[in-house]
């Protein structure tokens, strides 16, 4: 509870800066409109106008809040006007991509740790894969998969997987190699099989690494799903909302979609953090 005051202070500061920036960025438009109508605005009129435009450069927080309220609470969740509906479309691709990415990352890490050839060869490719801008490769993935008859959820999930397997590979290779030489020698003195060594020593040792990697992977996965929605001209999902918003200058819609994305990511990462706490506590490691 000690963190409440500092957190509120920071939130307060953000709001002050946000409102001030809204005035600054939206004022030229307000003055233009007034000038065309041959009016001059008083300071209070100017401020009031900058916080209430239809298509502001930077919408004020309360405008975004109202939009969020209208689209989250004010709509049936199955409606295409509901942000909950769009959030679910993106989240389902995120979760599927995250699951696939975690599985792929885990398998690659296993290969790297247990197979010398993979140890020598795979990691450079894994790193190279992440140096390619996702915005460049996402449309190609969508097009190629579409050509073989895959569309909808799976192509987006594959882009999510592409971003999320990386932190898992790196974290799990480190984690599975974290037992020291002495502990591995110990296993040898008991004539343990490789499977026993893995299940009883390497895997439990890697748990703290796994959860940390999963948090990063989850955030990356959401980015992947949103990026995957951009090039397809998708009609549903947070990415589609961002795209449509930018076509029509609906900045309020863009900002509410961004905030929804941030809330989704924060919630998902917090859930992984909770699982981490429970698991490590039961293992006596936290």
């Amino acid at each position: 509870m000690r963190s409440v005051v500092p957190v509120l202070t920071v939130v307060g500061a953000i709001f002050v800066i946000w409102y001030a920036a809204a005035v600054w960025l939206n004022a030229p438009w307000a003055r233009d409109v007034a000038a065309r109508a041959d009016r001059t605005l008083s300071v209070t009129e100017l401020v009031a106008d900058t916080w209430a435009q239809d298509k502001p450069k930077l919408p004020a927080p309360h405008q975004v809040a109202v939009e969020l309220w209208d689209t989250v609470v004010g709509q049936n969740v199955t409606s295409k006007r509901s942000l909950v509906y769009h959030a679910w479309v993106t989240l389902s691709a995120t979760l599927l991509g995250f699951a696939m990415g975690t599985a792929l990352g885990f398998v690659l890490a296993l290969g790297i740790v247990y197979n010398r050839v993979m140890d020598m060869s795979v990691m450079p490719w894994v790193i190279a894969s992440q140096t390619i801008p996702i915005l460049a490769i996402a449309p190609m993935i969508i097009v190629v998969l579409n050509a073989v008859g895959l569309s909808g959820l799976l192509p987006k999930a594959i882009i999510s997987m592409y971003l999320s397997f990386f932190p898992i590979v790196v974290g799990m290779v480190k984690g599975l190699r974290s037992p020291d030489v002495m502990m591995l020698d110990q296993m040898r003195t008991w004539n343990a099989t490789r499977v026993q060594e893995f299940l009883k020593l390497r895997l439990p040792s890697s748990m703290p690494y796994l959860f940390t990697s999963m948090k990063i992977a989850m955030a990356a996965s959401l980015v992947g799903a949103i990026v995957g929605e951009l090039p397809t001209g998708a009609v549903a999902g947070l990415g589609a909302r961002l795209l449509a918003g930018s076509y029509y200058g609906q900045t309020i819609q863009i900002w509410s979609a961004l905030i929804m994305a941030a809330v989704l990511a924060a919630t998902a990462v917090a859930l992984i953090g909770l699982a981490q706490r429970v698991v490590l506590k039961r293992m006596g490691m936290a």
Partner: protein
Amino acid sequence: MQGKESRHDGAVISARALGLTFQTGDGAVQALRDVTLDIHKGDFVSFIGPSGCGKTTFLRVMADLETPTDGEILVNGVAPQEARRARAYGYVFQAAGLYPWRTIGGNVRLPLEIMGYSRAEQVERVRRVLDLVELAGFEKKFPWQLSGGMQQRASIARALAFDADILLMDEPFGALDEIVRDHLNEQLLDLWKRTEKTIAFVTHSIPEAVYLSTRIVVMSPRPGRITDVIDSPLPRDRPLDIRDTPEFLAVAHRVREGLRAGSDQ
């Protein structure tokens, strides 16, 4: 196996002209040269010498953690690898090496799980060996809740949990303070008498080596080799104050002389 054992005069561990050369970036390092030694059943043998004398390497060769490049070594009459596969020895490392995510009981149970003992047998053995090292009642505690000395006792219990007749110990008390070390030495002697195990014990402490051992093997470095083997005249029953007797001091003196001679060369 009986036939092989008799060929080696009943020696539990028998090394003949053993050598081990490590290939390093700076060239070859002779960790062991021409090491010949028999360890008999029920012996408590200490290996003492300065760092680099090969005492730990020798122990690791017995445990099949290193492979010798020369000579021959038999453990229980068979090659070390075969002995390791038959789980012929328990090995206690310098650090306790307990798994932080397992309780003390869980740590002691670990080798039993790996070796496929039945559930009931595991429970029974864990209880018995924890009793043996005076850790009864700590079964449910996690390692970090125990002192360093207690952790090392738990690791000894773990090495005793399965039926290995040989106990290989690599400076198990090296990181502990003297008072704790005295106490553990006393307990270890008591345990050795009760279990009749054969113990090979690496140390760099002269009083510890003399107090514990029936035989003391003095080694010296570059190349690692045996310079003296001392049969202790001390009785098997040894209260701590035996360390003030003239016999004890005489053995300690001879060990010290041996170490000095080795380092002068």
